[in-house]
């Protein structure tokens, strides 16, 4: 059913207004992509699109060894981090959803509470701790402190609570212990929720700026977000075409994943709206 809830006059107004909003949203994106396709002598022209489009800027940025290093660091740290987060979220959510144990509520409150604490409030001791652990400028330092994911734990617990109890009982009758129930019953049925969560976690990790800003030092661990920031060159001037090609490439993975799995991502994003 596609209900037309607005009256016809309002419908026209809505279309006009929404088209303007969409233009304001998508216009800057197109200008950036347009600039990234301009040859050097057109970079400063007022035309929104290149007269003789070229991929030179993309070749230049991909030919930059530093950019390729950032790309590698971003890919590696993001994938490892998301994988670790998923495992920890599943285990913790299972503990909260399936078992009653002493301290259940207190621990749950502890996990939820952590969701509300932004990283800027813990940065000073964490900086010292990372230094003491020798994790500065390493993938470990970028990944490990972010592995516990209260929002994901909360979300998966909700899904598990909604799971019919009878299926567990049936499995128990078959002699499956809690561990096997998790892997054989729960996980296969949670695949859509896990997939959506993985995508949201991926986008979040890929776009993360604050923590790597604190922890990474050199090309050994600098991610794309940090690297792009570094391309804004104080002393010798920017190459704008190259820079715009860089930001376009850096945005592609998240956009591609979104278009592949649109619906789940939007829903999970909405539910992530409750986190701090």
């Amino acid at each position, binding site marked *: 059913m596609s209900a037309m809830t607005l009256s016809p006059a309002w419908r026209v107004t809505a279309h006009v207004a929404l088209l303007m909003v969409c233009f304001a949203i998508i216009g800057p994106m197109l200008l950036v992509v347009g600039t990234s396709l301009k040859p050097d002598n057109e970079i400063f*022209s007022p035309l929104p699109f290149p007269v003789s489009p070229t991929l030179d800027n993309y070749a230049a940025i991909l030919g930059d060894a530093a950019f390729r290093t950032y790309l590698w660091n971003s890919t590696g740290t993001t994938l490892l981090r998301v994988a670790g987060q998923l495992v920890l979220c599943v*285990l913790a959510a299972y503990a*909260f959803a399936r*078992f009653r144990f002493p301290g259940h509520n207190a621990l749950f409150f*502890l996990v939820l509470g952590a969701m509300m604490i932004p990283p800027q409030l813990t940065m*000073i001791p964490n900086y010292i701790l990372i230094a003491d652990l020798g994790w500065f400028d390493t993938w470990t330092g970028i990944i490990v402190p972010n592995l516990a994911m209260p929002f994901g734990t909360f979300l998966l617990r909700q899904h598990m609570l909604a799971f019919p109890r009878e299926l567990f009982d049936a499995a128990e009758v078959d002699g499956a212990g809690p561990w096997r129930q998790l892997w054989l019953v729960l996980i296969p049925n949670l695949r859509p929720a896990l997939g959506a969560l993985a995508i949201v976690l991926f986008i979040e990790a890929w776009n993360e700026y604050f923590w790597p800003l604190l922890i990474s030092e050199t090309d050994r661990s600098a991610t794309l977000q940090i690297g792009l920031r570094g391309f804004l060159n104080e002393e010798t001037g920017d190459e704008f075409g190259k820079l715009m090609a860089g930001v376009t490439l850096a945005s592609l993975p998240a956009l591609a994943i979104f278009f592949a799995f649109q619906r789940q991502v939007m829903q999970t994003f909405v539910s992530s709206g409750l986190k701090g």
Partner: protein
Amino acid sequence: MVPVTAAEAPRTRPRLWARLAAVREETALPLLFLSPTILLLGVFVYWPLLYTVYLSFVDWNFVADSKDFVGFENYSGILGSTLFNDAARNTLLYVVGSIPLKVLLPIPIAIGIWGLSQRMGDIYKTIIFLPTLISFVVVAIAFSWLLNPFMGIIGEMLRLVGLRMPAVFSDADLALWGILGISTWKIIGFNTLLYLAGLATINRDYVEAMRVDGASDGSIFRHLIWPMLTPTTFFVAIATVIFSLQQVFTPIDVLTQGGPSNSTTNLFYMVYQYAFVTFNVGFGSAGTVMLFALMIIVTLLKVKAFERWVHYQ
């Protein structure tokens, strides 16, 4: 008390074991599952919070061997500093400016999308949502080029029609509004989605029924839509306040580093400036503790708002 007889004694052992086994399964297993999460949160979230409180009472620069206890000197030092004054004022401006742009503006957008056909609504919704997926670093870099007063493309276009582009991010009067503008661009789709979730609970048949009864658009909005949206609005407002406090860190760091003349720094960025630009750990920690108190208040409001929101859904 029933005395334990000799005959019964041997039987308690297996029962005890069984009970222990059950307890082990019901307690030890979940605790085992939880341990990595709890351990990490303890080490990287809760312990640092406590340690920050300690650091807020000492004078330290990360390196010196001694941490001298200075009482409340760091707190009074911050409260008396121009940086704090500017950061507090700007934080308020960010929050106040966010209300019309990020909280109220998405309401008509969401209602428009909701009221159109599913197919068109979905297209609009998808486009408006896109900035949520793009990192704030990318957004900041892109706009610093687009809005560059000398050779940015928007400036060049304005020049064609005889207008001059102001230096948005290096003018003390404009920079904060520039950052507010690009953060609106980034968040507006997300907030629209939250409102759409609220609107989804409205039964469209009521709208039809009211219209058949001759109700005007205005009264449909006043009597049906707005009451259903109030809890969402409250929730979005609180979430946006937190966002405005915390997330603008990235555009501030990329575009202005808090300048010019402290005109764009906020309380979160101030704490970072103290701790990691000037390495004054005591001031940074004292600022953090004050911010934490503020966050607790805002978060409690948010939990309240969330409960109401969920309740209405």
